[in-house]
């Protein structure tokens, strides 16, 4: 029933001036790059706008009017989290009747402050379908919403005044602090849910439920830009102190009170958790650069150190909600893609977080729950039996000459696409042609040229795909250097109930193979140098000659003829 919610916020604490504007601008930037908000917006567009048509403003309370119009579609007009769109969402929209709010500045079990509620209305919940409303609703509307939300729960009527915690100031980060934090990550057993490297793949992750008995994911700590409540070290510290009510994430306040961990150590833990994610949230690179490797061989393994030397592009994925059966709960929400080539072969390495190597029996119950929740109203039932993890890299069959590319959802009859298909229950990869979602057919075995190797460790897949840049086959794509070649990606987490059209998808991006530096590249400058040099010498020589002649001429009057 109830789910993801709310708040963090301007508090009466001594945090650095992290006020609303600071947090908001930070999130504004991250929203721009995170895929889930895009997905959330799409879901909202699908369900909410239609539901928001009513609204006779005027005599009625501003909070109610605003709520019924913009919030009720998901949270339900009675605040019970049972809006018309709710069943398409996981986490489910918050049920306000129990006044359980995830993001607070108050102790576990306490009511949130008004500022806490307002903050989440403003910035949203990045890893859910809850958008921020700061730029969509007026200040008065958002304030009125805070008051109206509170009327859904009698807990706000009891006269209890929520007290914001004084969180103090963040300690300074250092290597020693991070080491201490890592030790505390072990000691506090954060890995039980979040996994050894924070990718949400801990031993208990597959059994977690929220307060509405819906399956809930342990946060992937390597993606702090998607943290509900914010990804700064201060935000993380607050979550550790207060817990996220309504979720399995407990408060560590009692652990501090009991002297098991000091506040300083808790800050170190927060710093360590922050360090698991990149310094900055990834931007979206439209172009994946395949670097040219000239004096070394292409990598032969997924963990070849050569991969550390090339750039990484982040490709966000969203649920496939265009073709039925649609998929509203994609597990794979982003890929880290690298590429290189040596003039003969193209190698691509793709990494993504996935808590299990599907099919994993430990996740069978999770899968059943997800399918039960997300699939029933979406056409054909999902694939029966064990489902693997899958990844597809897609190109057009030919490099388009103009701007037109095949339909990104695996092409269509007129304009097919060419794919590299990999799945976790088979070795290697398959080249295929597709003319629409679900129509892929493998190329003849004689024309199969792509090779694949994959490794799964600590909640992460690493997949390497290699193929000659050009092949004999007429059915595939011959890559060329120096051109932006469209590429798109599809991913499935089998243990999350994903197969067929129940997939995570990207739009078209580009891969750009750096131009080979052919002999002319080296000769041209030399030639240019030589030509310039000889021309220079010529000019100088002639000038000198003319000078000498001139001198003669000038010094000596021309002979009379």
């Amino acid at each position, binding site marked *: 029933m109830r789910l993801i919610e709310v708040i963090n916020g301007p508090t009466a604490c001594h945090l650095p001036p992290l006020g609303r504007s600071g947090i908001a601008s930070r999130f504004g930037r991250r929203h721009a790059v995170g895929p889930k908000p895009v997905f959330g917006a799409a879901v909202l567009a699908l369900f909410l706008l239609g539901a928001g048509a009513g609204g006779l403003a005027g005599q009625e309370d501003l909070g109610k009017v605003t709520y019924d119009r913009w919030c009720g579609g998901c949270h339900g007009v009675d605040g019970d989290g049972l809006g018309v769109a709710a069943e398409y969402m996981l986490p489910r929209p918050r049920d306000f009747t*129990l006044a359980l709010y995830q993001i607070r500045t108050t102790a576990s079990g306490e009511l949130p402050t008004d500022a806490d509620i307002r903050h989440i209305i403003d910035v949203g919940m990045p890893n859910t379908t809850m958008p921020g409303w700061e730029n969509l609703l007026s200040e008065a509307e958002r304030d009125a919403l805070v008051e109206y939300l509170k009327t859904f729960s009698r807990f706000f009527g009891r006269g209890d005044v929520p007290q914001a915690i004084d969180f103090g100031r963040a300690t300074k980060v250092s290597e020693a602090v991070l080491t201490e934090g890592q030790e505390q990550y072990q000691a506090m057993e954060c890995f039980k849910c979040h996994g050894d490297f924070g990718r949400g793949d801990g031993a208990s992750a597959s059994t977690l439920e929220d*307060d509405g008995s819906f399956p809930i994911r342990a946060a992937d700590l390597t993606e702090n830009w998607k943290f509900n409540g914010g990804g700064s070290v201060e935000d993380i510290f607050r979550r550790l102190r207060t817990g996220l009510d309504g979720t399995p994430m407990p408060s560590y306040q009692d652990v501090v009170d009991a002297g098991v961990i000091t506040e300083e150590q808790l800050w170190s833990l927060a710093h360590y958790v922050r360090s698991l994610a990149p310094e900055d949230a990834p931007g979206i690179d439209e172009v994946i650069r395949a670097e040219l490797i000239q004096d070394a061989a292409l990598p032969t393994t997924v963990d070849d150190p050569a991969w550390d030397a090339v750039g990484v592009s982040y490709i966000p994925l969203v649920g496939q909600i265009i073709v039925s059966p649609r998929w509203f709960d994609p597990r794979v929400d982003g890929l880290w893609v690298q590429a290189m080539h040596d003039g003969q072969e193209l190698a691509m390495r793709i990494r993504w977080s996935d808590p299990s190597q599907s099919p994993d029996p430990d996740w069978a119950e999770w899968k059943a729950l997800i399918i039960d929740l997300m699939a029933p109203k979406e056409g054909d039932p999902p694939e029966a039996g064990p489902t693997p993890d899958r990844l597809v890299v897609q190109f057009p069959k030919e490099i388009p000459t103009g701007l037109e590319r095949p339909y990104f959802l695996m092409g269509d009859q007129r304009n097919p696409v060419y794919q590299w298909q990999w799945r976790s229950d088979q070795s290697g990869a398959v080249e295929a042609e597709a003319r629409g979602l679900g129509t892929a057919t493998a190329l003849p075995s004689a024309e199969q040229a792509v090779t694949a190797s994959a490794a799964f460790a600590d909640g992460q897949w690493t997949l390497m795909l290699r193929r000659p840049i050009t092949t004999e086959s007429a059915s595939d794509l011959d890559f060329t250097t120096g051109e932006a070649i469209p590429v798109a990606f599809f991913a499935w987490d089998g243990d999350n109930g994903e197969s067929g059209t129940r997939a995570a998808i990207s739009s078209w991006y580009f891969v750009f193979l750096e131009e080979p530096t052919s002999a002319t590249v080296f000769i041209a400058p030399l030639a240019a140098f030589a030509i310039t040099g000889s021309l220079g010498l010529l000019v100088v020589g002639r000038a000198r000659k003319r000078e000498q002649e001139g001198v003669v001429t000038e010094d000596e009057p021309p002979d009379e003829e």
Partner: protein
Amino acid sequence: MFDGIDLKKVMAATVAAFIVTGCGGGGDSGGGGDSGGAAAVENPVDAATAGNIAGSIAFEGDPPSPQTIDMDEEPVCADKHASTPMIEDVVVNEDGGLANVFVYVKEGLESLQFPTPRQPVTLDQNGCVYIPHVLGVMAGQDITIKNSDGLLHNINASPTENRGFNMSQPVNMESMRSFRFAEVMVPVRCDVHGWMTAYIGVVGHPFYAVSGSDGSFDLSTLPPGDYVIEAWHERYGTQTQNVTVVTGETATVTFTFSESMAGAVVPLGEAIDPHDHGSEAVRADQ
């Protein structure tokens, strides 16, 4: 589950009480008072005129076969169990006695106020199970929550009448909590170990019990009078019986549960309509 009328009255009264006193107030179940005030309350029961209830919980038919708990992921806990640990939802002995049934006086004590015991009750986590699995406590009485396993447990209490909590206990340690209002029952779970569940019955008076391994329970030193006794089981729901207590005598009562009752009654509190002061009108508008 809350059938509207009673609840509304109780809620209205409760809200009124808050408005007047600013704190405290009665819960909806278990009658009796609350713990809100610190003011000392004398035990109103005269032992000389009191009577007792002796009861038993019978299980009819074949109980479902018990589910084992796979504790492989926590060898420290697994080693604490001499035999394979079992889920404690249905525990029936050879004579058909059903354990872990919470029994309490639901009606008949409304006019009396009882002192809150100073002695805390203990909810222990030992061997990755809650001990006890079902626990009774008075509103406002301290509960010592103890981790005897020395590994991470979280204690996630999700009441509906009270405010809940979700705390971490990653080492051997103790924490104290209490519930302000009567509530039957408050579910408690450990998210790290999905099999760990406990239920806490919070009532406004001291007349509650949990049936033992033989299915028996006692409610002693009750003022003479007519009572409604409720028996709650996590799988089989609730039952009530009317019992008359006479001075110096022990009334007997037997509750009978069977597998056919599984899931028939939602045993835990449900969310309450937030707009019970005017929700009908609001809904009609929409």
